[in-house]
């Protein structure tokens, strides 16, 4: 699960990391009030940043500076409501604009290949790490946290020296690096990224001081661990969520809405992706990824059907079940019941094999469903049905 920058910053701050203050505004007036406060506290300017869960908001014009409360209000007004990669901006983060001396990248990721938490750092801060990885992979330094002891101080120091961060900032860097890994563990995150981690200049009573600060933060959480973090579940941004997603979660259905016209209902993630791929190969476009999981009963089948039909673009439905734990006859009964209740008439092609497939076939035949023996055949039939209904490709 992705969370917004402001929430990511809260998690870092909770781990004791140096995050400059910020405020979240849902309306221009709120942004103005926040700007007033930060400017009053001594900030020269404030930064106003769109809070959206997609990258590239800077390039899209979603990050701007303002020198006065009035300007902040105006800028926030322009950013709020903006469309960034299909997402409508509904809130902005307002904070003091830091005087940046130098920017770095620091990120902790769960690395599959090494099966470790890997801490990555680069002196090329402020740009997307994927771009650095492509252009100058040697500029990215990485250490693998000890699999049982976590990140050790000396590992963090090695990373600091590798990116040229010694001297007065060494100790703070070690603290921040450990904090990233601690944040990861405390929240079951699979990514905790600070970009930029910056040396910022502040004026204090004794002149300028330079210190490290986490100016932006990105955290993604492990969905499997959310049940044990009810507080983090609350950070789910419903503003950016398809309403169908909540129902899918409720029924333990994996559901991802797509742009096509052929609704898919499958048991198993790999088979669900394969079903989508075969729809595409047959000349159609899948309307969704949908995995009803193992051992689905009638109620889950009915919920899956509702999710699919809630999309007005759906012109045909492909049901593909390879029974193992899942019993074909249970699915068939669920389909029959769901169809009897559904408001919209959409052609459906059903393929059920494996456990109790014979009984399923009998039930479907009695109820006059269109069936298919193989997945390839089912895909072809579904695409044809959608075309006939005026939908596919």
């Amino acid at each position: 699960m992705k969370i917004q920058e402001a929430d990511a910053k809260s998690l870092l701050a909770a781990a004791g990391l140096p995050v400059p203050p910020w405020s979240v505004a849902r309306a221009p007036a709120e942004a103005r009030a926040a700007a007033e406060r930060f400017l009053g506290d001594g900030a020269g300017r404030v930064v106003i940043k769109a809070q959206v869960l997609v990258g590239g908001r800077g390039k899209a014009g979603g990050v701007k500076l303002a020198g006065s409360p009035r300007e902040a209000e105006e800028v926030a007004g322009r950013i709020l409501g903006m469309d960034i990669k299909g997402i409508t901006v509904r809130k902005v983060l307002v904070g003091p604009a830091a005087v940046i001396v130098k920017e770095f990248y620091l990120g902790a990721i769960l690395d599959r290949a090494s099966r470790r938490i890997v801490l990555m750092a680069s002196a090329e801060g402020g740009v997307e790490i994927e771009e650095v990885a492509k252009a100058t992979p040697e500029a990215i330094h990485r250490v693998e946290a000890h699999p049982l002891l976590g990140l050790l101080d000396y590992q963090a120091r090695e990373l600091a020296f590798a990116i040229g961060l010694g001297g007065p900032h060494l100790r703070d860097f070690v603290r921040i690096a450990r904090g990233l890994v601690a944040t990861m563990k405390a929240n079951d995150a699979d990514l905790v990224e600070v970009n930029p981690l910056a040396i910022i200049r502040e004026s204090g009573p004794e002149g300028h001081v330079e210190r490290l600060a986490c100016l932006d933060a990105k955290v993604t959480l492990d969905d499997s661990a959310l049940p044990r973090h009810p507080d983090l579940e609350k950070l789910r941004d419903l503003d950016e969520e398809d309403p169908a997603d909540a129902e899918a979660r409720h029924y333990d259905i994996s559901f991802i809405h797509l742009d096509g016209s052929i609704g898919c209902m499958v048991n198993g993630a790999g088979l669900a992706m394969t079903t989508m791929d075969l729809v595409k190969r047959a000349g159609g476009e899948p309307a969704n990824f949908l995995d009803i999981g193992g051992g689905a009963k009638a109620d889950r089948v009915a919920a899956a059907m509702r999710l699919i039909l809630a999309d007005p673009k759906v012109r045909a439905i492909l049901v593909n079940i390879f029974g193992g734990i899942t019993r074909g006859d249970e699915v068939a009964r669920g389909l029959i019941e769901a169809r009897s209740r559904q408001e919209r008439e959409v052609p459906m092609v059903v393929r059920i094999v494996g456990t109790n497939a014979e009984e399923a076939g009998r039930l479907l035949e009695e109820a006059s469903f269109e069936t298919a023996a193989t997945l390839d055949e089912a895909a072809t039939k579904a695409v044809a049905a959608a075309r006939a209904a005026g939908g596919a490709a």
Partner: protein
Amino acid sequence: MSILIGRDTRLVVHGMTGREGEFHSRQMLDFGTRIVAGMTPGKGGLYALDNRVPVFDTIAEAARETGANTSCIFVPAAGAPDSILEAVGAGIPTIFCITEGIPALDMLPVVEVVRAAGARLIGPNCPGATSPGRAKVGIIPGSIHREGSVGVVSRSGTLTYEAVQAMTDAGIGQSTCVGIGGDPIIGTTFLDVLRLFAADPETEAIVLIGEIGGSAEEEAAAWAAEHLRGVPMAAFIAGRTAPEGKRMGHAGAIISGGRGTAAEKVAALEAAGIRVASSPTEIPALLRAAGYRG
């Protein structure tokens, strides 16, 4: 022969007295698997599966009393890492973890302890393994198989069944089918299984069924290019149409930062001389085209 499991498999099932554990234990018994023990803390001393299998309080006791050498874990996600560690602690060399939904960070220390102990973990969130005519451990339906000499390795569950069924329908039997699981942190990778198949005299061809996310297929392809020249192989990669940044059901199936796409994986496999099917039903034909005569 076969890999991971076989006629000398002596299985202990963790959580045998639970609903899933009991159901699949019966299926395994019916397939001919030798289940020597069940384990449910607090139910030690009972007999399960129609009084055929003794239940123990601890795996250590089960191993001591029955000589169990393989374990299969059906306990819920919260207890599964502990179950794996218990099996390691009891000296069980081969451990299958069927449980899904284990937080990834919980698995990091577990895979490390497994590795340090020289044990092997398959999964978690995997369907297990089947060696037709010998044994099955896990939840793969027994009926789809046919005895033979093609090794199958897959990150998926039902997709594997689809591919295996297609092979069986085409008259191609399997030596061992292994589901390694769809989680980001797993005990045994494609590459590990390829090594085992390479060393197995009864495996004459290999089918690899991958999906988007991570780079395990690429690593396997690179190894195969070097070590499996001459072995007929075919592959399938699910998720050609998957969008970036979305987790496709499996915790591990996600394209992020432009990496882990099906296109990359297909390219890596083809570069290694392995043809990639565009539908599971094409796998038998590709195997034959690759020189498989079984």
